């Protein structure tokens, strides 16, 4: 440890302003602070500081994503074995998925962090930790068979247009991971929807077992076909984007996020409440038992990207509502819109992505209304006292 510190101290002057490689100042700084908590001391204001920082915060989110990632890898292998009829044991199932998903993670981090470092370099800022989470989210919300160059392009689009043009982490309006997905969805629709893209190898016409359908439950619901059992959907052994299928794995992550207080439980609860109430209302209005409206409300919670979106996307503190009251409204409307889009818009079987992006847009308005109410209340207080 001492030796490493000495090494860093020795090469530091080269990378500092005025040094030979001074233009790489931000990059060096990012690696140094990755290795060591910096020795910066408080200058103004409070002399002592809480031990939490953004690195720790972001790390917690990544840890919370691990169950969904690991299960996603397993499920990629499992769906493949179902579709080909190949006998696979647990380890080979997992590693089949592992080798499919790992390149996606590497491409996402490689492209995204490359752009982040370059942007920090141009601005002369420290590299922000925000992309550590985004970079993990993006592969988890994409179909496993998406070509890697499309993934790379989506990542580049989301980091540059979705984030850096606004000023970087903390300044963006829409969730960058969802921007990446929306880009891929509208740019390459044939790779992002349909029956063939969700199971590895299916699109390339690998041997398919008779009667196997790679369609997601959402597509089945739209088409009026039968759905997998609630238990299968809850556990996640269904086709879908890499990390979104298992509500169970996502719930484990949610538990960690709520326990550490890093993501807002208010948003998660209100999103679920919004979806359930809308679902129940539609159930009551359903013209016949076969209609999409008649699908039990709680099915919506385990189908598609709902659970993943509610736990990891809607709760993004930068793009979500910032006031505590606003968070209730914001979450509720996401749930409501997600189910509404799913049921009434045949063009978009997955409503969650658009619901969150739409509410990201309206989050500042919700906050504005909440803050205005506070201002009015405070003005009223003045009137009463005099």
């Amino acid at each position: 440890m001492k030796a490493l510190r000495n090494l860093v101290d020795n090469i530091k002057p080269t990378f500092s302003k005025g040094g030979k490689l001074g233009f790489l100042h931000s990059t060096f700084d990012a690696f140094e602070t990755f290795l060591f908590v910096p020795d910066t001391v408080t200058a103004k204001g409070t002399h002592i500081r809480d031990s939490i920082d953004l690195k720790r915060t972001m790390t917690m989110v990544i840890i919370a994503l691990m169950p969904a990632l690991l299960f996603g890898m397993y499920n990629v292998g499992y769906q493949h074995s179902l579709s080909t009829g190949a006998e696979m044991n647990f380890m080979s199932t997992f590693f089949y998925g592992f080798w499919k998903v790992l390149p996606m993670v590497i491409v996402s981090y490689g492209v995204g962090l490359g752009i982040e470092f370059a942007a920090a370099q141009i601005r002369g800022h420290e590299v922000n930790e925000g992309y550590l989470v985004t970079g993990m989210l993006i592969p988890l919300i994409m179909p496993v068979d998406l070509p890697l160059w499309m993934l790379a392009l989506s990542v580049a689009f989301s980091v540059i247009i979705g984030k850096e043009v606004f000023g970087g982490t903390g300044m963006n309006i829409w969730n960058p991971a969802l921007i990446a997905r929306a880009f891929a969805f509208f740019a390459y629709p044939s790779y992002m929807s349909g029956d063939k893209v969700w199971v590895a190898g299916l699109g390339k016409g690998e041997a398919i077992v008779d009667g196997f359908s790679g369609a997601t439950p959402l597509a089945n619901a739209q088409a009026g076909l039968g759905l997998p059992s609630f238990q299968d959907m809850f556990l996640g052994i269904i086709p879908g984007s890499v990390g979104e299928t298992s509500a169970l794995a996502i719930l484990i992550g949610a538990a960690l996020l709520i326990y550490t207080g890093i993501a807002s439980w208010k948003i998660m609860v209100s999103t679920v409440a919004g979806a359930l109430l809308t679902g129940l209302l539609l159930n009551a209005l359903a013209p016949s038992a076969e209609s999409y409206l008649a699908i039990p409300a709680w099915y919506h919670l385990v189908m598609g990207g709902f659970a993943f979106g509610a736990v990891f996307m809607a709760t993004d503190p930068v793009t979500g509502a910032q006031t505590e009251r606003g968070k209730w409204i914001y979450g509720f409307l996401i749930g409501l819109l997600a189910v509404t889009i799913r049921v009434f818009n045949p063009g978009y079987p997955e409503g969650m992505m658009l619901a969150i992006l739409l509410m990201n847009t309206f989050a500042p308005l919700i906050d504005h209304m909440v803050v205005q109410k506070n201002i009015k209340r405070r003005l009223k207080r003045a009137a009463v006292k005099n």
Partner: protein
Amino acid sequence: MSNHIRLRKGLNIPLKGEAQPKITKTISPGIVAVKPTDFKAFNPRLLIKEGEEVKAGTPLLADKKRADIKLCSPVSGKVKEIVRGDKRKLLAVTIEATDTNEYQSNEIPPLHSASKEQIVQALAQNGLWAAIKQRPYGTIPDLDSKPKAIFVSGFDSAPLAPDYEFTLKGEIANIQLGIEVLGKLTAGGVHISLHASKYAGSPLHRVEKAIIHTFDGPHPAGNVGVQIHHISPVNKGETVWTIDMYSLVAIGKLFSKGIFDLERLVAITGPRAQNPSYVKAVPGICMSQLKEYVNKESKEDLAVRYVSGNALTGDNVSESGHLGFFHNQVTLLSEGKYHELFGWIKPMRLKKFSLSRSYFSWLFSKKKYALDTNLNGGERALVMTGVYEKVTPMDIYPMHLIKAILAGDIDKMEALGIYEVIEEDLALCEFVCPSKTEIQEIVSQGIDLMIKEMS
């Protein structure tokens, strides 16, 4: 009790080094400094020259615009140096104190027959008007200011703050007189807020002619700004005054004995304090006199930071610096100048304290921590939300107020509560901020902007 207010939001930082209730030393003044920078919106004009003899109570500085407002020497002695900083800004007047304190005797009108103007003049000429802070802004009020009411906090909830029950035990008569003096200057009465759990045993509850409120809850419940917010909030166009207990005692002494006497008990606290306890001293004493209280054992051989005041709002004055006018506490901290390998990802870090549950400190509610001055991270854009709200027991949106200040939006600042806060009220937000934002500095800039725009 009718005036009881219970606050739930806030945070008591479990810092090591609480002062034991005993007096271990009387500090002989030595070199004492009077710092005009302790007072907001005070533009100093010199009234003395270097080498001049002064008594305790001799005016040293007057405000340029409001010449009657003066700052006085707390000790008798010889003016040693007039310290100036950049652009010849006057930073301090230092006085070499004599061994025995000689007080200038002032003619103070007897309280029962004194007019309002006489009282105001007596306070201003004898250096105690400057101890009054008005809200909004925390500045020294004008001599003709008419406050809605006057507020005094009867307890200090800041980290390791001195226990008023101990330090003010013998001063009740002076406090009583101080209340009566100030009571003549306002129609709204003098409001004193006491801590609920200490209420019954507190000698402070025997004071008369004041309106007593009790508060309960973690820091910042003891901040007078938070108390005002819950008792009678400051709206646009209104002014209230605040004063601290120690200055109230000094006013009492001025009106009973006719002398300017600031002597008080100062708490020596903090993780680097050896034998944390109380000393008798006057504001302005040099920190080097407290050297013997510094605890030398520190594994990494870290330097010591001398903080005049508490760890949240105090000033880093260094060993050659001086105790501030409003301070009755010294906090000794380790300078956190060290690198920690992979510190941010280590799961345990049991010696670190955090409000967030990403550490385990919440499991050990009784444990005290030797926090140091390390920033524990790097400065970032504002990302997390809902954190400030947890430690701000006021009907104010701190995040939005901070953003309004950063944007320089006067109307928004006004609507979101800039009149109700000063730096100390949002100090806890700065402590907990994961993005390491300098919130007190931002609030200070906001207040300066308001003063500039509204005058």
